[in-house]
């Protein structure tokens, strides 16, 4: 029989000076033709999102090819993001990496440059135990004064890095600056357990869904999502969240169904097709670093046709 949790005493809450709410944007990383990072276009990308209603900016998620960026590139990109956003909305730096030492370094850097929070995960690809994840997050979270969000990424085969409700409870008890989670479980039971435990222990704990799979979790306590298709359809993202807030479920369903169709287009070799589709919207973010493939001309044409069929071309902004 599993342990059933109530709300035990915990470390004093350290509330962040902002509220995470809405479809938040996680920009792609624009690259030059020689595959170097194009920081000027990255600044344009960040600014585009802020001007188009993003309630927060988060970088570099996997969509931004973070495992393909060097530490130096990640630090410089984070600086460009913070400078470009210029306090208009909160900024999150993803510090997850294969090496815990790199994560600590990135967390220190994020605080130094004035980011508002960090998102982290214990080093992946090692089938970590719950105890190993606890120790890793505790180490990273104790290393910064910034609010810390963790990235819950359980995989179907039992690998991945999973934050169970028991682990979330322990981390809330241990870390006063543990204020939220990016949830990629996309699973009713897993989500409900985290929500039931975390929101009772730490009201205001922010559960942010990955990839706009938000409709199923919003009534149960999700506060928003990190967007997959905001680089294509920011108006759709904003309309979706407004419908959720208004409990206009019919409109929210229409938006979620369309977003799901968009993600079905992008999920193959993500974010290759996403970058390919951005070309049709007048926002060319360049190629993808190996081993992922850059979208071919045929793929770009196909994506353009699909965006037209979905009505995206007429309702969403073109250019930067």
């Amino acid at each position, binding site marked *: *029989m*599993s342990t*059933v949790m109530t709300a035990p005493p915990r470390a004093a809450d350290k509330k962040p000076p902002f509220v995470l709410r809405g479809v938040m944007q996680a920009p792609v990383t624009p690259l030059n033709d020689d595959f170097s990072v194009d920081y000027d276009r990255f600044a344009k990308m960040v600014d585009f999102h802020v001007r188009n209603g993003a309630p927060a900016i988060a970088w570099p998620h996997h969509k931004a090819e973070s495992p393909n960026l060097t530490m130096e590139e990640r630090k410089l990109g984070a600086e460009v993001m913070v400078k470009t956003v210029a306090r208009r909305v909160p900024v999150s730096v993803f510090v997850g990496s294969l090496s815990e030492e790199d994560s600590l370094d990135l967390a220190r850097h994020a605080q130094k440059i004035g980011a508002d929070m960090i998102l982290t995960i214990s080093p992946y690809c090692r089938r970590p135990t719950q105890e190993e994840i606890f120790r890793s997050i505790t180490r990273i979270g104790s290393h910064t004064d910034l609010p810390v969000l963790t990235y819950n990424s359980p995989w*179907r*085969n039992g690998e991945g890095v999973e934050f169970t409700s028991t682990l979330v409870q322990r981390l809330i008890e241990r870390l006063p600056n543990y204020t939220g989670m990016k949830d990629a479980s*996309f*699973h*009713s*039971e*897993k*989500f*409900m*357990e985290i929500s*039931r435990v975390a929101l009772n222990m730490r009201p205001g704990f922010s559960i942010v869904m990955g990839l706009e*799979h938000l*409709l*199923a*979790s*919003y*009534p*149960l*306590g999700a506060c928003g999502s990190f967007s997959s298709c905001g680089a294509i359809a920011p108006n759709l993202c904003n309309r979706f969240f407004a419908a959720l807030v208004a*409990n206009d*479920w019919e409109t*929210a*369903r229409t938006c*979620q*169904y369309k977003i*799901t*169709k968009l993600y*079905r287009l992008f999920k193959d070799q993500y974010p290759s097709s996403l970058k390919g589709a951005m070309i049709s919207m007048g926002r060319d973010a360049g190629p993808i670093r190996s081993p992922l493939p850059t979208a071919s001309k045929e793929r770009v044409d196909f994506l353009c046709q699909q965006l037209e069929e979905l009505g995206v071309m007429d309702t969403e902004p073109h250019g930067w």
Partner: protein
Amino acid sequence: MKKFNPGFVHTPVTPFKADQSIDFDTYSRVLDFHINNGADALALPMPQGEDISMTEVEQRKLLDFAMKQVKGRLPVIAHIGDPGTDIAVARARYAESLGAAAIAAHPPYFWHPKPSMVAEHLIRVGGATGLPLYICTPVVEDAGTHLTAEIVLDVLKRLDNVAGLVDSSMRFVFMVEVLSLGREIKPGFQLLSGTDYMVSNGVVGGNGVFSPLASVAPKLARQLYELCAKQQFTQARKLQEQMALLHHTLKTAGYAGLKGALRLMGRECGEPRLPRSSLGAAETARLAEQIAAMPFLQGEPRGW
């Protein structure tokens, strides 16, 4: 195909005697309890009725008995879980001959067929009768072949009498993909929850539930269902949390936990059939403590 909306479906347990035989006397009380406590329809035997622990002959007898006991008071959905296609087809036809309202079937577990063969199995079972077919996600997702949205959509295109999908996967993306793309193929296509996590299912567009925990807490389950049916998903959160706590409490012990909870509610249904083990004394005492600590169960019916 006649339109059928099952609504709030209860999935009764199967009581067993100490000698492991089906306790039909108690089963009649179980069925009456569900009929008298808010069910719109019954689905059996389902995993809660320990379907795979019964022989094929027993499953036929169980359905035969249930149809006579229910006497048309509610629709009965016959669950056909056999992993052999021909056996499943024969039992689906038998269910139709007894007057079942619909068939619920899932991919054949144990085997690892290719997706096209999973579709073929479902099409043959569903096509064996003129009844509405509800495709159920597998109980154990990682055994056998995974049921993808593409398989469901393929079956939907090729078989006229598919009425809907009963989802126990609880996966947001699967639910949204199946429902949104399924309704483009067949506008009346239904999504029902196969668990008591009804809010997520309902808010993405689902419209019914096969409720495993209605046998323990029929009032709570019904209230949750009705809030979802009225599209009051935000208001349903508190009840969903309560249901999640009950689910979480019973989950690890499985059928033993479910039957242990029924005993605590005054509805003795025996122990799970072997090879499933029963609760030990310490586990039983702990479960009693946990159930007693759930004030929301105080309003639930005790006894039959």
